[in-house]
């Protein structure tokens, strides 16, 4: 019973209303569900109004589906309406104690002049500093208590997740994407993005590899289940994946203090938020704008 796949209907509506006319607009969309062993896409569509003059679908350097478009007629609003039906399967159960000692993993990720297998090479892409995640000593000090020598890497990462969850207060509006991460660490408040960035900085400061994952979280309780109190469900959500051999990547949600399972729909991953922002663009003109984002994640009764 606990392995039943779940199906979701997700709608992610982004709407800009501009104060003046936008003459030309370039947008990059990362709104399509990413295909993975434990996630399949049943259907997906993005409707953009006004009609783009140019549109290219492709994959970014991290393997995420990406859509690039241009609108070249004057317009005073933009709506990007993404719909998808997705099936999420249970991930294999992993006993944290069976993962390799974290210091051994960190050592394995340090350069040595010999060949790497594909998995190790992939891990190294997520081990260095990135624009939103500078690796500073304060992060390694903060995380130190979780990383006792010889502790299995997944156990240490989960201990770190518990610590962040316990220390931090979920507080929308306190931080922005531009808020320096050290300030977030000192203030102990923020949203899912901040929880994820702090955790990634801590992991990388220990020499481990960590990804930033974006997606959605189930909003409404399943039938017959009590109402969930998951945080971050009314917008796009973000969490972390840590490289934990021999299991490979294991996804952890520090905002809700749990391992990622069938409640999460995965869209994209990268080194940090900058690599995966759902909608990023440059407009010419437009003046002040108002932005509204609505996300709903509805469980479907369908049994896959």
């Amino acid at each position, binding site marked *: 019973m606990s392995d039943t796949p779940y199906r979701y209907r997700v709608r992610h509506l982004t709407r800009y209303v501009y104060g003046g006319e936008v003459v030309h607009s370039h947008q990059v969309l990362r709104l399509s569900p990413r295909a993975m062993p434990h996630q399949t896409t049943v259907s997906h569509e993005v409707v953009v109004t006004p009609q783009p*003059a*140019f549109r290219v679908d492709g994959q970014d350097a991290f393997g995420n589906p990406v859509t690039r478009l*241009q609108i070249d007629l004057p317009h005073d609003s933009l709506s990007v309406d993404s719909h998808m039906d997705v099936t999420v399967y249970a991930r294999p159960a992993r006993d944290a104690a069976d993962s390799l000692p974290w210091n051994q993993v960190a050592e394995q990720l340090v350069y040595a002049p010999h060949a790497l297998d*594909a998995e190790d090479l992939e891990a190294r*892409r997520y081990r*260095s500093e990135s624009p939103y995640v500078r690796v500073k*000593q304060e992060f390694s000090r903060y995380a130190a208590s979780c990383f006792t020598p010889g502790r299995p890497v997944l156990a240490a990462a989960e201990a770190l997740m518990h610590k962040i969850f316990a220390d931090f207060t979920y507080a929308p509006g306190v931080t922005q994407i531009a808020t320096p991460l050290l300030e977030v660490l000192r203030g102990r408040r923020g949203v899912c993005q901040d929880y994820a960035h702090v955790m990634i900085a801590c992991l990388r400061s220990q020499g481990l590899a960590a990804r930033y994952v974006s997606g959605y979280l189930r909003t409404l309780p399943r039938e017959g289940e009590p109402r969930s109190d998951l945080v971050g469900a009314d917008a796009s959500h973000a969490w972390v994946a840590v490289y934990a051999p021999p299991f490979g990547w294991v996804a952890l949600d520090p905002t809700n203090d749990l391992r990622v399972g069938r409640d999460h729909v995965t869209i994209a991953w990268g080194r940090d938020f900058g690599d995966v922002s759902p909608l*990023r663009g440059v407009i*010419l*003109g437009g003046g002040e704008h108002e932005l509204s984002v609505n996300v709903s994640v509805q469980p479907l009764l369908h049994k896959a």
Partner: protein
Amino acid sequence: MAKRAEQTRDRRWLSAYAADPGRYDELLATDGKVRPHWEPLVSRLLAEGADTTRRSVELARRLVVENGVTYNVYADPQGRDRPWALDPLPLLLSGSEWRQIEAGVLQRASLLNSVLADLYGPQELIADGSIPPELVFGHPNYLWPCRGTRPRDGTWLHLYAVDLARGPDGRWWVLGDRTQAPSGPGYALENRQIVSRVYPEVAKDLGVRAIGGFFAGLRASLLANSESADVALAVVLTPGPFNETYFEHAYLARHLGLPLVEGNDLTVRGDTVYLKTLAGLRRVHAILRRLDDDYCDPVELRADSALGVPGLLGVVRAGRVVLANALGSGVIESAALLGFLPGVAERMLGEKLALPSVATWWCGEQPALDYVVEHLDSLVIKGAFPNQRFEPVFAGDLSATEREVLAQRLRARPYAYVAQERVQFSQAPSWRGGSASLGARSVGMRAYAIATPQGYKVMPGGMARIASDAAVDVVSSQRGGGSKDIWVLSGNAQNDEDQDEQPLAVLTVPRDELPSSLVENLFWLGRYAERCEDKTRLLRATFAVRPDPGIWKPALASCRSLGLLDEVKEPSESLFDAEQALGLAADLGRLAWAATRSRSRLSAEHWRSLNVLQRQFHEADAARTDPRETLDRLLLGIAAFAGFTLDDMTQDDGWRLLMLGRQLERIQFLSSLLAQRLAGGRRLLRGELDWLLDVGGSTITYRTRYMAAPRLTPTVQLLVFDESNPRALAFHWRGVQRTLSKLSVSLGGGGEDVLVDALRVLFAADLLPLDQTNAAGTRARANFAEALVNLNFEAGRLCDRLSMRHFSHTGMDVRTVAA
């Protein structure tokens, strides 16, 4: 015997120059004799004598200053225009020695090109352990969005530069690679042109290899792969005049015959990038960029960049534009890579590196870190990544405590640091500032290579950089110091090796791609040139009437109400006050600014004439010269500058916009000045009319025509309506009409007629009563003043229409948004 005597003379002449036993000496062999390849130049200089040498040094200095060659050091309190030093004595390299350097540079360029292709493609060099992943994935210039892109011709590096220095053993060592947007080839060219003027004939007689062909090759290489070479368009992309090497961008662009553009001159539509020109959008096939790659596209790269071209990466991905160098190429500039390149060369080419690099340790490997910490004293420590903002440190110069702090830093983040052996650079002779004696300066060189369809080619020359003083061996323009031309001797006077080089002018077909922003700058250049002239005339005429209080008072009031002079300050001081927003000093600054932005269109003499007048004005300010004398001289300078506008510039649409700027400015100035004097029907004193004619530059014309003391009606006739008077309003509105009709792109919507109504009102005015003292006279003057105000207003509207139609709308907000 004769030989011996000559050598004695040699010794005396060189007495001030001493070899340093710890260094290689470029001029003297170990036995103290002049090296054979220097001999011909040395004997020439001997024959010249000290006076000629002094004159040569002075000539070089003056040419540098007058050409406005600048190396702008950021945060330099001296501002944007610090002359950059050129030592006219070249660095000589023999042909055989050069061939070795050349082979090494060629090998390195193609190796690094392959490294880039791998790092942005399969990453095999990382997978097999040849290059540490930390150096790539931890480098801020590894641009992830570029991974998977492939330049349309497979070339990542179109222009490559390498910094070299010669060690005590006489070998050349690589200090670092420049792959992002190498600076300096334009300076090398400028150096060559100046030094060739200082030592005419010498270069030819010595068989110095020409470097012009290198630039022709660069231009050809950019467009080599365009599907339609005949209409293909390449541009030089600059971050703009605030950049430290902007001069070079403008210089290169002009020499290559390519438009110099900023990000907002380009626009991406679909999968194509276009230049916004006066005639509409023109497809761009190649971009020689002097803008760092992460700033090139705010949509996919740095979002905070206002300098880039939104969507450019999409065009690259579609293979529709050649970027030189390709986006992402900065990642291999890290010094940390140097130690790994020998292995990479073996792995990729099966060859040894022909040019060794200075011994380099990347601290990310434990044994390297241990070695570095132990041998700190003899090493230079550098950051591995440019965003560390870590200045190179000579650890030997530090105190024990500082060294310990440094060691702790290395241990905390070893992967972020590199250590290099401290090399004793070779030394070369250099003219001591101002005198004709020789001094020794440590010297390094930057060599350049370009990709051509036949493979890489190396510039037979380059830029040598010398330290600012004899004891210093860090050679960097950012830290002062200077540069030298490099003469590669071919061994014969005929220059056989460079025969395939054609003068660039033959290859450069003039075209009519005028970037909209350039047109805009030319328009403002015209306006400010005219504005400076008008204000100079107004001030000069005003200071001239100072002895006559009755005239001085209203004249001064005019200057003050037009904002030229401060309301309370002493006028002769306020004249030089750059803080006076509408004053002459401030407008001269704006003129210089507009000229800087239009520089790619100004001839060297044209540009120099501006520098001369600016300098004179500032010298007059410093010397507190009499205002009238200063303004007299300034007026001559401005007239010279205006003369070049007529004689030296191609008369295309850009020039027409410049002329429109002048004409409209003139109309606005005269109409506002006259309106202000006549407002409310005021009567003008006779002396005021003299003053007005002087301001209007029409005193002589009036005298020859009317041979009588001035009266208002004929004065107005002459200043406003007389089409044969080149200083009259009428002359200029005819000019406006003529220029508008010649513009290849019409304003549309009857825009050309915009002044007509205002002129009709003016023409309808009854001029006869203007001199009358009765109420009819007052009314006539007041009405005429209003008609002038109206004309001024309409001329302003025409300016707005021009800018709407022809300019690039750079004022429009470009913003990055994310949700």
